[in-house]
């Protein structure tokens, strides 16, 4: 009985290896052996570089201009408040 149980366990464990074995035996695409220049890649497989480059530069410009605008606006508001406070007559004690 013990021998049968051991055989079942071994058979079950061997099933775990099966997908790997099948996968290893299935035909694999030929390995790429050398560097493929960008110009040799078909157009449908290429990612447009210009779009990414333009997006990156536009993003940097937009964020930096937006930040300068934000700081200037906050600075203007605080300086206006300071000027208004300076114009206010002192509180009598």
């Amino acid at each position, binding site marked *: 009985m013990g021998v049968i149980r051991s055989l079942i366990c071994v058979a079950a464990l061997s099933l775990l290896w099966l997908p790997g074995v099948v996968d290893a035996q299935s035909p694999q695409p030929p390995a790429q052996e050398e560097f493929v220049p960008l110009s040799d890649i078909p157009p449908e497989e290429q*990612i447009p570089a210009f779009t*990414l480059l333009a*997006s*990156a*530069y536009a993003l940097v410009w937009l*964020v930096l201009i937006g*930040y300068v605008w934000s700081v200037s606006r906050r600075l203007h508001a605080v300086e206006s408040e300071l000027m208004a406070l300076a114009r206010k007559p002192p*509180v009598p*004690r």
Partner: protein
Amino acid sequence: MSTLTTVGLVVIAAMFAAAPWVINAAPYESTMGLVYKIFFFHMPSAWIFLIAAIVSGVYSGMFLFGRKPSSDWKALAAAELTFVFGALTLLTGPLWARKAWGVWWVWDARLTSSLLVWMIFGAYLLLRRYGGPGSDKLSAAMALFGMATVPFIFVSVNYWRTLHPQTSVVPSLPVSMGGPLWFCFIAFLLFFLLLMQMRVRLERQRALVEAHFLSEDES
């Protein structure tokens, strides 16, 4: 706006306007082609991100030990700039990686630690905005932790396996590529200094307004 600020703004605007021509003059990198030119804005953004984090950490330390309000203003100004330049680094990097690596993002040591420092400074700003009294000291401690992570970001590419280029790339660049890179870095650095000056001035004016209201309350 002072004369020095105006002159600085004009110089920086001229440098940023000239940058596309300077970058265009740089030769193409042989394997990446056109997209590698993102590097000329990505790299200076990343350097300023790290410099700003160090500046914020140093002034936070000075504030914690010296208690000078001006140190806190400078730490806060640098923390906000760390967040802004960190965002630029983390946004331009994936645009380059999509083409160069085929993926937008990888969870390697450099990218993950950069994201972590960016989030630390994001938390710093949230703490300053909503933390209430005492948040200045808590956030100063956070900035120190943020600064302590900077050397790790810098050397991470040399110690862990990553797709990101190593630190040896910039010193080995030919003049035709290194020239435009340093031009862009100086433009970013001047911009950072100008923004620091504007941001510190904002904090100084805010402190004056607060002092005014406090004196009114006391009287």
